[in-house]
């Protein structure tokens, strides 16, 4: 119960193919996030699972039920798929009270009055909106509206939950709060969840597993840790992480990669001569010292952006600009000298031709 299987899904609008032969399985109870830039096909994928869009090819299975199969001629409409879906716009019916928004679908299911009342009370309680039952959506704040949309799902108790960028209309502070409550929702309902977002922080904080999509194809799938630390290709490496990863194009010289202004140590399996490679290192992985150390490279500070807990530093060596992330609120004069170094195991290497991560293929 609760498994989602997508099998060879193809979807195009006119000549533009937006989802290209997608295979995907979500395990029962799993929280899966589909992450990608806008137009990558992630929302279309979600809408196809919900039944709001029809694939051109392929099969979709929910639990042990086939809900779409082009080859078997099966199309189960969204009304009969028994899912829960949260929209970016919350999609609360503006002409109905909170209570009616929550109970409309329950009445459709012909539940008993006492059952409906109990579920309503329970749902409002869980999202901390007890006492708001008779309000209209327009009388609620953005965060409260969001919670009503969540309560509507809680009351319906679907075994599969779909969420389409549910947090993108909220301000930054509320977003952190709502992330926690969505995680609680997932835990309470024990529902298989597919969450679509372009926000990597949501993806990393919420998910058991993340799928990164670009141009209708899966670029990588893995746990948030794997995605962050072992990006499968340059697209993922660049897409994940804020501030963005540092990329250095260079040519191998035995055990180092010569990137012009800087040199990067190479792992043994990549040691060679005259091979073009791209090195990538996350800003927080760069080692930094305020005093000179042997073998470290001297850089000059250009721009400091303290964010409170951390500070983003833009430093320069020759023509190369490097982004660093250091804990604490750092105050340094512009042009101050720093020394940096790279730990060999924190660097990823990519093939400029295939764009793939070389180390992970080597492992």
């Amino acid at each position, binding site marked *: 119960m609760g498994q989602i299987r997508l099998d*060879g899904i*193809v979807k195009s609008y006119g000549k533009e193919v937006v989802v290209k*032969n997608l*295979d995907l399985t979500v395990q029962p109870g799993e929280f899966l996030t589909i992450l990608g830039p806008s137009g990558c096909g992630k929302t279309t994928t979600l809408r196809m699972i*919900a*039944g*709001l869009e*029809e694939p051109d*090819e*392929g099969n979709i299975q929910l639990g042990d039920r086939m809900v779409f199969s*082009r*080859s*078997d*001629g*099966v*199309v*189960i*409409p*969204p*009304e*009969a*798929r*028994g*899912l*829960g*879906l949260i*929209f*970016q*716009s919350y*999609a609360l*019916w*503006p*002409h109905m009270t909170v209570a009616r928004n929550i109970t*409309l*679908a329950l009445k*459709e*299911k012909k539940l008993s009055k006492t059952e409906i009342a109990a579920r309503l009370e329970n749902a409002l309680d869980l999202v901390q909106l007890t006492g708001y039952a008779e309000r209209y959506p327009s009388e609620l704040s953005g965060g409260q509206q969001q919670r009503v949309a969540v309560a*509507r799902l809680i009351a*319906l108790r679907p075994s599969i939950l*779909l969420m389409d960028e549910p947090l993108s209309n909220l301000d930054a502070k509320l977003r952190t709060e709502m992330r926690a409550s969505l995680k609680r929702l997932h835990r309470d309902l024990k529902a298989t969840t597919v969450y679509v977002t372009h926000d990597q922080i949501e993806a990393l904080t919420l998910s058991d597993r993340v799928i990164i999509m670009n141009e209708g194809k899966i670029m990588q799938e893995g746990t948030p840790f794997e995605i962050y630390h072992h990006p499968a290709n340059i697209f993922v490496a660049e897409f994940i992480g804020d501030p963005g990863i540092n990329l250095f194009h260079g040519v191998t010289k035995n055990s180092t990669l010569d990137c012009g202004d800087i040199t990067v140590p190479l792992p043994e399996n990549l040691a060679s001569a005259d091979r073009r490679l791209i090195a990538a290192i996350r800003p927080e992985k760069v080692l930094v010292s305020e005093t000179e150390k042997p073998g470290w490279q001297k850089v000059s500070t250009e721009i400091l952006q303290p964010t409170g807990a951390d500070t983003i530093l833009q430093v320069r060596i020759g023509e190369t600009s490097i982004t660093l992330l250091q804990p604490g609120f750092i105050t340094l004069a512009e042009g101050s000298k720093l020394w940096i170094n790279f730990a060999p195991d924190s660097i990823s290497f990519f093939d400029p031709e295939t764009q793939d991560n070389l180390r992970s293929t080597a492992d």
Partner: protein
Amino acid sequence: MAPVSRTRDRPAFWSLRNFSYQAYRLKNRPELIIGVLALVFLGFVVMVPLLQIIKEAFTFQRYDLAYQPDGNVGGFTLLHFDRVFFQPISKALFFKPLINSLMMGVAVTAIALVVGFSLAWLMVRTNVHFKGTFGAMLVFPYMMPSWVMALAWLSLFKNDRIGGSEGLLTYMTGTQVPDWVAYGYLPIVFTLAMHYYAYAYLLISGALATVDSELEEAGATSGMGKWKRIRVITMPLLMPAIGSAIVLTFIRILGTFGTPALLGMPVRFFTFSTQIYASINARNQGDAYILALVLIVLAVSFIWINSRIIGVRKSYVTMTGKGFRKHESDLGKWRWPAAIIVILFLCITVALPLILLLWESLTLIPGNYSLSNLTSYFWAGQGNMQLAYGEPGVIHNRGILEALGNSIKLGFAAALFNGALGLLVGYAVVRGRGARLSRWLEAIAFAPYIFPSIALGAIYIGMFSTNIGPIPALYGTFTILILITVIKNLPFTSRTGIAAMLQIHQSLEETARVQGIGWFRRMFRIIIPLSMSGLVAGMLLTFITAMRELSLIILLISPGNNVLTGLIFGYQEQDMAQHSAAVTLMLVMFIILISVIVRLMSRRAGVGKLSVV
């Protein structure tokens, strides 16, 4: 990665699997089903009739035996075509009405546009006095039949030309009013213009209210003078509205029947509309069909020329004036004179006609306007053989009360069907956006716009005078009146429906779908409540139009299905001036009464502000 070759799994087109897949798909997409049904229905009631009269126009009819006794009834003939265009009779049948119609159309459109534009500018862009009152009063003509002014004109200027009584002017001065003042081109143009300015006013003031003053201020900051700003910035933005006002007015004038019939036919001044009526009455349907086709061709080419000149493809798009009123220029010492001009204008177009009709309805002997001649007979009389062929007064007159019932029934039925059809067309068009079906449906729902009213009436005679398959002959029934009214109003209601549906975000329905709520409940619980305000406005408009319509239904009414407008026309033809005046007043009163009730009810029900047009 799996190979893409799975495409081969797709079942063959004729296989049972593919059939079940397509059936599932269709079930999954109610908008497709509605779209197809609506398309078939509209095709049947709009396109088939058109083809039908083209066919009929070139078919030898039984009544043609009078001209060609050896003709083959039912065979192909160019007889009607020849009569209308190439015979000595063509001058009276075609060329004179053509010139009259065109001259009338151009003159009325020009005057209505100038008047409507000036009033719109005054109301939206200046600080003229009594704006609120004027705003409500200026749309008043919209609620009256277009020929009320013509009736009033006759009360005022009627001479002894057609016998019977004479008008107020003759009564007071004792001299006969010359024919060219009492009848024909001049009064027709004047009275029509004083009605149709309301359309231009509504369209242009709506557009004007949405022209952002910031755009003009941007022009001012780049050093443009006031007139240059109006010419370079404001006018181009208003062009679509002006274009639709021109097209709307012109096509309506081409199809209008009441006024040219009342003021033109007595002096044998025929327009296309009255000529079509005369031909049908003379049992020369074939001629009437050809004339109706010419009228449609005229309307289509006018739309085409207009869009060419104005350069806006969809110049007929009506705008709704959800106005943000700002930047009113100060009229200064002209504030009062401007207000007085508007008051005078309102007196002439609204108050004077109604007062004249009231007075007329209270005179015992027609043409005698003295106080001693006043009577309530025509309102409350029991029936007296010495007066008006023994026809009882309004409240005791079964014929009138039946026609009133019919008018109200027609108004409500048309409003209801139009509302439902507009909703469904809007739903299918908006949900199916981008697909061919959606575009076709939108186009065909708009098609009745190009049929001038009288031509559509002629088409419907041709179509429904015999039974077509399971559908019985509808001629002479009440159903045909409802049908034609619904179809004629469809361009406007479907537009309202589309606009209302566009305002309902797709996710509001999708979220209900995913939660397992079926289509009917989605419609009744979500779509209809959310589109209610637009729908009610559109339905009220249809109601008013249906109640006051004559041109559209004049060819289709018979004693069995008569409505008030038809009855009034009949009284007028029999020179029963008091009866026609009294019934006209009653009609106007009912239209106003019911619109006020609907507005109050919808306001109480929390339905938003209504907009006209």
